[in-house]
Structure formats: C-alpha cells, structure tokens
C-alpha cells in the first residue's frame, strides 16, 4: 500500500461566526491515488481543500501533507485578465522565482499538454469557459505538483463540456500519475474520474461513506453507460441522499486502491 500523501486526522472546523463546517473528518489519500469528495452544498467540501492547502487552519484535529508541491485548481479559473494565456501559465513559476527560460519551457509544455498551443498569445476573455479551465490546469501543471486539489473545477460548465474535460483530465492523470483530491457535487463525475469516492454529510461535514471504484484506467467515455458504473453511482447517490453512514464501507483501509 502506497504511503498517504495527505491525511486528515479527525479534522474539525468552526468559523468565527460559529458555523461548524467540518466535524471530525478522517480521510487519507495515498500517493498516486485519485479521491473524490461529494456532498451537499455547504457541507464543507471546499473548506476541506482550503485546509489541505494551508489557506485555512483547523479548529481541531490535524492535517498532514507529505509534499509542498501542491497544485490548487479553483472553481473559477482565476486567470489574470490582463495576461495572455502564456503569461498566465507562467505565473506560478514566476512567483516561485524560476529563471525565465525554465518558466517558458514549462509553460510551453503545459500549454501543449492541455491542447492550447494555438491560443498561447490570446487573453482569457477570448477563450471559452472550458478553455479557461484548461489554462488554469496548465498553470498548476507547471509546478509539477505531487498533490492536486480540485475545488469543483468544472462545476460552472455545461454537461457536455464537463464530460469532455473529465475525459481529458483522466488522460492527464494516466500519464502524469499525480495524487488528487477532487471536490465535486456531481456523483457521476466523482465516480468517473476517481478511484475512491468519499461522501460527506450535510453541515457539519462528516464522512458518511467511502466507496472504492473498481474500474481500470484509462477509462473510456462509454464507461458512463456501463451497468456497473450506474450501480455504483446509484449507491453513492443513495448514501448522499440518505444522509446515513454507509456501514459496509465507512472506514475502508486507508489508501486502498484497485486498478
């Protein structure tokens, strides 16, 4: 079993206004594992990622990230509108103080990986929502992250674009093999992209279920119509709707993966 890259140990979070977002969350993500977190709106999914990245502290419990090479993909692409695609993709390495030539090389490589080489000199406003999200992904790729945190990155996109970007994200994952914690409110998306789906309860968020996804990578787009896929998505959905702890798989072995 691979070592966990990210571990939440009984993490709770209470905000200054008294809102309790998370209550005793235990979760670990093994090296190279792709874990999705689904849950109702306001259950603390994004807070979980903000805690993992260090943007927000915990009120109780502990978080351990065994790497500082973390890529964070926000729900909004967070591109700087005055910069071109190339300059946006170079931003993080620029902040990291890398030499210009190296920044350029990494950016070119990442832009090529997300298929936007022809748009390197366009500004974000000339791009569609899906293309902007790819630029955001490329920007994180330049850091060569070991751990990727995705905060509902495709939540604002239409269904067809979202499915296409899911396919493309999986292509990237298959080739790069980073560790990923992927927050989404779409059960189908969660089951399609990940190796494990963790279900959070309504606020305060607690782990209700932890479902291993038994499908091999690479996953064809047609997997979404597979009977087994539909069955698993149904189970996750039932757990989400039922709001009760999923007895059989609430505490699976940490970092367990099936490929």
């Amino acid at each position: 079993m691979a070592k966990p890259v990210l571990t939440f140990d009984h993490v709770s979070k209470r905000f200054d206004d008294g809102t309790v977002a998370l209550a005793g969350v235990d979760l670990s993500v093994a090296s190279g594992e792709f874990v999705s977190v689904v849950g109702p709106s306001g259950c603390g999914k994004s807070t979980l990622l903000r805690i993992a990245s260090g943007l927000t502290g915990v009120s109780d419990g502990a978080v351990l990230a065994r790497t500082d090479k973390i890529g964070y993909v926000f729900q909004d692409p967070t591109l700087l509108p005055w910069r071109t695609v190339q300059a946006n993709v170079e931003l993080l390495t620029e902040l990291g103080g890398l030499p210009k030539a190296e920044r350029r090389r990494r950016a070119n490589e990442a832009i090529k990986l997300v298929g936007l080489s022809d748009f390197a000199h366009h500004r974000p406003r000339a791009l569609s929502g899906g293309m902007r999200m790819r630029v955001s992904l490329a920007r994180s790729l330049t850091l060569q992250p070991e751990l990727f945190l995705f905060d509902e990155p495709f939540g604002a996109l239409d269904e067809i674009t979202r499915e296409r970007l899911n396919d493309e994200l999986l292509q990237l994952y298959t080739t790069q093999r980073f560790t990923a914690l992927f927050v989404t409110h779409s059960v189908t998306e969660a089951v399609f992209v990940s190796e494990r789906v963790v279900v959070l309860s309504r606020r305060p968020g607690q782990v209700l279920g932890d479902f291993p996804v038994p499908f091999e990578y690479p996953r064809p787009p047609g997997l979404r119509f597979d009977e087994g896929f539909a069955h698993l998505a149904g189970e996750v959905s039932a757990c989400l709707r039922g709001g009760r702890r999923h007895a059989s798989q609430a505490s699976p072995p940490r970092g367990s993966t099936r490929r």
Partner: protein
Amino acid sequence: MSADTEISGPDGPTLAAPLQGASRLVPSGRGRWLSFWGPPFVVLLTVLGLWYAISYLLLSPQRRFLLPPPHAVLQVGFLDPFNLRELLQALWLSARVAMAGLSIAIVIGMALAIAMSQARWVERSLFPYAVILQTIPILALVPLFGFWFGFGLTSRVLVCVLIALFPIIADTLFGLRSVEQDHHDLFTLHDAGRLTRLWKLQLPAALPAVFTGLRVSAGLSVIGAIVGDFFFKQGEPGIGILIDLYRSRLQSEQMFSAIILSSLFGVLVFWFFGFLARRVVGGWHQSARDPTVS
C-alpha cells in the same frame, strides 16, 4: 487534449465566426458611425439654434452682449489673430498649471491609496480626512493658499492638486480593493510577498478604476486652474484671468471664446485619458473599450 472542437462547441462560440444573418441586426461601419455621432450632432445643432433664438429673439441689440450670437463669438474670438494669440497663450499657461497640479495629485493620490490598501488602520486613519478635504468647499480653502503660498503660480497649482486629489485616491483604492478573493488565495498559496502581490496583482487589477479616476481628475484640474486664476492674479495671465478681464470690460465675444476654449481643453484632456485607458486596459477590460465598436 484538443481545442479545435471547443471553439464552436457548446461551450460558447467566442472565437467562432459571426452567426449568419447577424449583419442585418448589427449596423454596417457607416451606419454605426452615424448612430454614434448622429445624436450628439443633433444636440449641438439644437443648442446652436436655441443660442441664436435667444440672441436675436429675446435680447434687444443693446442687451445682446449678454449672449452674443455664435458667429460673432467665432469672428471676434477665433478669427481675429490678436485675440486668438492672447487666448492661446493664456490657455497654454492654464494647461501647464492644470497638468502640473494633476501630476502632483496623481503621485500623492496613488501613494496614499496604495498605503491605505496595505493596512486597514492606515485607511481608517487617512480616508476620513480625504473625505473631509473633498467636502470642504474649494472656494473656502483657496484664499488660505494665498496667505500661505503667495498669490502666484504655486497657489494656482495647489488649487489643481486639491481639487483633483480625491477622485484619484477613491478610485485607486477601490480598484486595489476590488481584487477577487480567489486571486488573493492563489497568490497566498504561492507565498507571494506584499510587494509582489501589489505589483503583479493589485495594481494591474486596479488600472481600469485608476483610469476612471484620472479622467475625472483631469477635468477637475482644468477647472482648478481656472478657479485659481480668479484668486491668484500675480504672474502671467491664465485663461481664467482673461475670462475675468473680459467680463469686467464687457467683451462678451472674447469671454465666450475663452469659455469655449477652456471647455474644449477639458474635453481634450478627458478624451486623452480615455484614449490612454483604451490603449492600456482596453484589451482586457470592458470599461475601457471603444463604445463605437460593438
């Protein structure tokens, strides 16, 4: 990943060709030009018509000096070489005063706004006084400048600084504060220091608001130069001094010419900063785009 299908896909045809039939809805180049310039031209003609009507129908020839007809203003003020030279020399001096005041206001205003954006306590300490400075009637403060700095050019420039300062502070601060939280988070995640954040994030993001402030302040600085002329008459005459002089001599044609010329200068300055805004931020921000281009 492939991008080519994205462009015209369901994700939004932002780079795709215009829809067929759209040309029937969007006017052609000439039509667009007419629809843009037509309405203000009609308003100008209406104003000139009213002007003539008041001059010739309401005012007797003895009282016509109160509003001389437009052609008389043109003839005396702009077509008489002596008068025109006098007006242009005065305007040039007022322009220098206004631009000097505006430059100082930009430096002080932006420095104060940047300082306030960096710490709430600085904002809490300074902003109320900036508001008070703005709310004190400028005409009440101007005489004090004469006591403190004399009745020459220095005081005229200071009036421009005072009148142009607040919009620069307010708009720059608004722009610096308007950066989205996600962008701040992105910079926080990557350990960006205060200066890096200011230089690479806050200042570029604030530019559209800064230009809005600059346009307002530029117009105000022209007004400040003229107001200063009324109070501080030592040294070479500016356009305001000429206006006061023509008023006292009942030379209304010249006075109207001076008023029109100073207005045109104000418009020119306003247009210049609009042009600069389009050049600098028009490529990425809606507010600075040319309204004639749809």
